[in-house]
């Protein structure tokens, strides 16, 4: 069993929710008993075949899994190096990987007898996914969203409302994702008796980073089996974009103990690492925010800085704690690409493969564009196409100087 192997990269966190020095449970006392309950219930659910069966059934028939594993012939030819493959999680119901986690968490909420769901959202993808599962299960849903994001993501706000969610604009701070998360935590503290908080990424207090990773690991488990079945071998390199890091940890985790598989996480370098960006690993240092210890963008006094990325989904000053640990352990490499590089990659994929990617995976594609040409032609590179770009066409048009 992997769990007993001291040399495994797959047995984190420890029983107190720590990934090395990262992770943990840094929350107000009001939430502690709830977090401990959630952990207990998650342990029971994980061991319950009926829970797993219901999760699998919903993923197959509601989300549309397994998502395809796709070899990209024209992009491969254009880059002239490694074979480029994509895990097509953008084909999921609601258009991104976020729904995998929401299905798992709402099943947990129902198990715990909670009757009201809250969530934070940045670009609105996690908000839409949460509103979707709430509609599917008939639970009231409140989504906290920074007022700035409400204004710039109007289509997703409308989607959430169509799905029956209440969208609460948050005006505190810079009125973006981190402020939405603060406000969701405030609501949760005041409504612990009936409310379940569906966190959208592999961050927050233990057990969230673990359970979000486990629910998202369906991506890597499928990809590993599909790749073995299609090519008879494992990929040489995995690439995924990172904001909080849930799609990346979902792809990476099932491969962590395959030593031949290298991994690359791609942060958002925004206008450049010497300017405004959202690359917590490249430009931050360890600290404590939103319930966990991890790399954060912060000043010397520990005040949190605003992240910037063209992709609202990567625009967060922290990163999931398991990524912080994987960086320090050296198992995963991390790099970053700028807004401009992501925009170029967005257009490249549209043109070569007929796929409009979201701006988040466009960061992964930008990294692929740099690395694939340096790899031999028999090498296999697998990138996570974690979301589709319908939501981003307005932002992209604006950046390209096109008025719609």
């Amino acid at each position, binding site marked *: 069993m992997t769990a007993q192997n001291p040399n495994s990269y797959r047995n984190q966190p420890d029983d*107190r929710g720590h990934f090395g020095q990262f992770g*943990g*449970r*840094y*929350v*107000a*006392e*009001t*939430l*502690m*008993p*709830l977090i401990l309950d959630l952990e207990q219930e998650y342990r029971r659910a994980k061991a319950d075949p009926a829970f797993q069966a219901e999760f699998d059934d919903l993923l197959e028939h509601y989300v549309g899994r397994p998502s395809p594993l796709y070899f990209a012939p024209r992009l491969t030819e254009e880059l002239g190096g490694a074979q480029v493959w994509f895990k097509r999680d953008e084909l999921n119901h609601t258009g991104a990987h976020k729904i995998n986690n929401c299905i798992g968490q709402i099943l947990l909420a129902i198990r715990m007898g909670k009757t009201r769901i809250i969530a934070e959202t940045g670009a609105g993808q996690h908000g839409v996914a949460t509103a979707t599962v709430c509609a599917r299960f008939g639970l009231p849903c409140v989504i906290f969203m920074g007022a700035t994001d409400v204004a710039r993501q109007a289509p997703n706000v409308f989607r959430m409302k169509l799905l029956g969610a209440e969208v609460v604009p948050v005006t*505190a*701070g810079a009125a973006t994702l*981190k*402020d939405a*998360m*603060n406000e969701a*935590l*405030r609501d949760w*503290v*005041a409504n*612990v*008796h009936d409310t379940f908080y569906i966190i959208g990424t592999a961050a927050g207090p233990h057990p969230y980073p673990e359970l979000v990773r486990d629910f998202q690991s369906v991506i890597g488990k499928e990809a590993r089996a599909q790749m073995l079945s299609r090519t008879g071998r494992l990929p040489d390199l995995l690439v995924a974009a990172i904001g909080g890091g849930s799609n990346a940890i979902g792809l990476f985790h099932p491969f962590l103990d395959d030593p031949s598989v290298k991994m690359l996480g791609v942060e958002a370098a925004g206008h450049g690492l010497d300017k405004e960006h959202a690359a917590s690993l490249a430009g931050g240092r360890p*600290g*404590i*925010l*939103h*319930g966990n*210890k991890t790399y*954060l963008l*912060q000043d*010397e*006094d*520990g*005040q*949190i800085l605003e992240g910037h990325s063209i992709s609202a989904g990567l625009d967060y000053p922290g990163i999931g704690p398991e990524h912080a640990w994987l960086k320090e352990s050296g198992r995963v490499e991390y790099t970053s690409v700028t807004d401009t590089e992501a925009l170029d990659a967005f257009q490249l994929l549209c043109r070569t493969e007929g796929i409009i990617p979201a701006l988040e995976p466009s960061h992964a594609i930008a990294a692929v564009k740099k690395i694939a040409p340096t790899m031999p032609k028999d090498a296999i590179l697998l990138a996570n196409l974690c979301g589709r770009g319908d939501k981003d066409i307005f932002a992209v048009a604006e950046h390209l100087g096109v008025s719609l």
Partner: protein
Amino acid sequence: MSARLSAAFAKGHAALVCFVTAGDPTPDATSAILDALVEGGADVIELGMPFTDPMADGPAIQLANLRSLGAGTRTADILRIAKDFRARHPDTPLVLMGYANPMTTRGPEWFADACADAGIDGVICVDIPPEEDAELGPWLRAKGISPIRLATPTTDAARLPAVLDGSSGFLYYVSVAGITGKQSAALDSIEQAMTRIKATATIPVAVGFGVRTPEQAGPIARVADGVVVGSALVDLVAEHGVNAAEPVRKLVSALAEAVHSARKEVA
């Protein structure tokens, strides 16, 4: 634990604990406000360390944090304010209240040393529960500074000993599950909680969250060892800015009258 904190809860009446945010509205204005708290009759001063992301606080204290940071308040300013306070008021206990990241960002040893140097008696770190005590607690205790923990309506009897273990000075009972400055708890629920907590706690218990007026504070002072008032004072600072000292002194004076004259039934 600090002799000043022990003495504050051994005056034969309930202690009035008053909170304001350091650097609100400006670092230079804080000292006069702190003096007004002491003159008004506060027994313990809680000085809030501003943070960009105060997720346990309601709108009043969130805005105070933003005003303070907007005025350029740095950690060094807060420590200087505390040290100057200690020089002016050698006997009034001073407690820092805030969030983990600004407290631990230069390392727990640095922070504990800085607190000791500034004459700080206790530290309330909202987002370090007992489970993560190793992050800061041992360093504070080594310097004789009290880690002051929060207990809430969700802290049941099974959990309470863990909350008390390693804490000293006083226990801060958050009377409502929620954020600062919103609703207040019914008196009978506070009374029940005090009975429950006092069965286990050997340190004084102060009650806070939602306490704004002398009329609310008095009855609580009959069943608790201390009463914490924060958002109501912060609102006065918001309203009066650099001229807040006088209105703050008046409210504290009325609160102190109510708290100090309430007969404690529970020893």
